């Protein structure tokens, strides 16, 4: 009864073209955003630092990869490296120009990974599918090699690691060891909301339609005057921009410092799994995927010992760890069997059922 389409008439094309046509959806979205901000003041620092910040960072990276793989249909295994480009660019920029606010540099660093991403996207005109994945794998290895071998990238720091310098906004530390999880969470949340909104605008307009056209039927798209190379490169650039910003946020807002190997191939796979399980071609799916892959193991790690202890079964920490892997793996397979199109499709089906509930006829 709460969720109904009936009675909501669209009288202009502008309102009919809105991204959330249902009043209930809009209300729900606003409530979720308010709840997310409220969490900064209600949650403890473990929840913010170890759960929410990384969840948001991975959601952003998933949105990036989803634009490329989900919307445009180009498989990429270079996500980790593109995140790295963002992080290293951000480091160089904020140490070279410490006077400019670091938030500016986080946004600017994305442009560097966008440029690198577009460069490595060039083969996509000729090759598709798994072959393209292998071509992007080259980006992954080459860029990671650069991170290790070019000490200039870390300002000749002997440890070879990136570290977050202290930076402030209006006198409040937002980066570095003195920044509280609360301020960092608020900053990351705001950046993710803004970028998600922009991505949603893009995919619902002309550019999004061109991307989907290339994905669904590239020959027909070309015969309608859509330039394949430009469209694909734009997807690579936008996708890498998001990954780059996510990489910068990951190192400087979550870890506080990192070495080159956080941008390895595992990171690429990790984000790819999130996109596949969340739902290809869905922005909300990116959040679901990140939640399932990142938050569920943490929840299991807490819940499992609590579940087992009443039965007198005491298990070691390492057993819990193994169990966690097994359960997460089984759940991933379960979700993929139940709904091969990802959690976003489940969500959609759920909403459609709710529209007609409780009289589905």
């Amino acid at each position: 009864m709460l969720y109904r389409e009936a009675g909501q008439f669209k009288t202009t094309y502008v309102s009919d073209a809105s991204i959330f046509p249902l009043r209930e959806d809009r209300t729900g979205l606003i409530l979720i955003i308010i709840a997310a901000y409220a969490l900064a003041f209600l949650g403890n620092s473990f929840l913010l630092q170890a759960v929410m910040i990384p969840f948001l960072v991975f959601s952003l990276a998933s949105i990036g990869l989803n634009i490329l793989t989900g919307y445009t249909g180009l498989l990429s295994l270079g996500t980790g490296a593109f995140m790295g480009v963002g992080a290293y660019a951000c480091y160089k920029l904020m140490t070279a120009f410490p006077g400019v606010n670091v938030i500016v540099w986080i946004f600017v660093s994305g442009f560097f990974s966008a440029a690198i991403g577009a460069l490595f996207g060039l083969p996509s005109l000729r090759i598709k599918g798994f072959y393209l994945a292998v071509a992007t794998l080259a980006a992954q290895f080459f860029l990671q090699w650069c991170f290790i071998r070019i000490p200039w990238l870390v300002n000749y720091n002997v440890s070879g690691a990136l570290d977050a310098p202290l930076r402030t906004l209006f006198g409040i530390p937002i980066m570095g060891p003195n920044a509280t999880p609360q301020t960092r969470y608020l900053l990351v949340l705001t950046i993710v909301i803004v970028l998600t909104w922009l991505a949603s605008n893009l995919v619902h307009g002309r550019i999004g339609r061109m991307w989907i056209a290339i994905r669904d039927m590239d020959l027909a798209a070309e015969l309608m005057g859509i330039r394949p190379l430009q469209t694909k490169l734009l997807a690579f650039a936008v996708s890498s921009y998001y990954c780059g910003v996510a990489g910068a946020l990951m190192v400087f807002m979550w870890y506080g410092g990192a070495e080159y190997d956080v941008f390895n191939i595992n990171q690429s796979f990790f984000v790819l799994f999130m996109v596949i399980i969340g739902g290809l071609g869905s922005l909300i799916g990116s959040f679901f995927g990140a939640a399932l892959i990142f938050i569920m193991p943490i929840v299991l790690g807490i819940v499992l010992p609590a579940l087992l202890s009443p039965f007198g079964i005491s298990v070691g920490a390492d057993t819990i760890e193994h169990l966690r892997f097994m359960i997460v793996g089984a759940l991933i397979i379960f979700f993929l069997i139940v709904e091969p199109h990802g959690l976003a499709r489940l969500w959609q089906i759920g909403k459609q059922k709710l529209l007609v509930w409780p009289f589905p006829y």
Partner: protein
Amino acid sequence: MRAPDHPVLSKGDVLLAVENVSLGFGGVKALTDVSFDIRKSEIRAIIGPNGAGKTSMLNCINGFYYPTEGSITFRGIKRPKMRPYEAARGGIARTFQNVALFKSMSTLDNIMAGRSIKMRSNFFWQLFRHGPAMKEEVEHRKFVEEIIDFLEIQHIRKTPVGRLPYGLQKRVELGRALAMEPDLLLLDEPMAGMNLEEKEDMSRFILEVNQQYGTTIALIEHDMGVVMDLSDRVVVLEYGRKIADGTPDEVKRDQRVIDAYLGVAH
């Protein structure tokens, strides 16, 4: 004063001329020395038995293939080697033998995607979905709604096209091609696999497009009744060669055409 790039053509002028076109893939010759023309505002049918090279001919016209020999002149300008999207931007639209819609998109979005080349607002406004981007979206939506009304597909406006029955998919595909406001519309078997009623509807749409908008149409079709009723002129291909060219009545009486379709007694 510089001459306009595209001379204004009036009805009956040659819009597209195919001159001595041959097309080979390795040893296989798909087309051999084919010449014909398509005049402004006419309905031109290309017929022939299976494997005669009809679809290859269309593929040459919209830039998928480049003829190994011969040339194609469009709007009085001899065409250089080009990519399909350039042909599309030049005003050639096309539908496919096997429906080639964007399956996950709705009918509306499919036809809107056909307007992509007409849309101009830049990336910045697209990011904010505001100002010129939204204005443009609404303007083109109006045009698309006209096409939807014309093709009588209002009820499936928001349905993903992958779920539609075949006949409707063909209709949406025609709508998507019309959204490009083409000068030359190529239809590859627009009525394949349709029942009589759907064929009648489709024929009506083709005639109306031709008469209302003056769109030049070249179509490939196997249903001889449809071809003879719709088209102004017919070109007949067999084994990659042109065997007849003329009005439906002339072609019908041509002995080589009869032989090609019915076979020759040996």
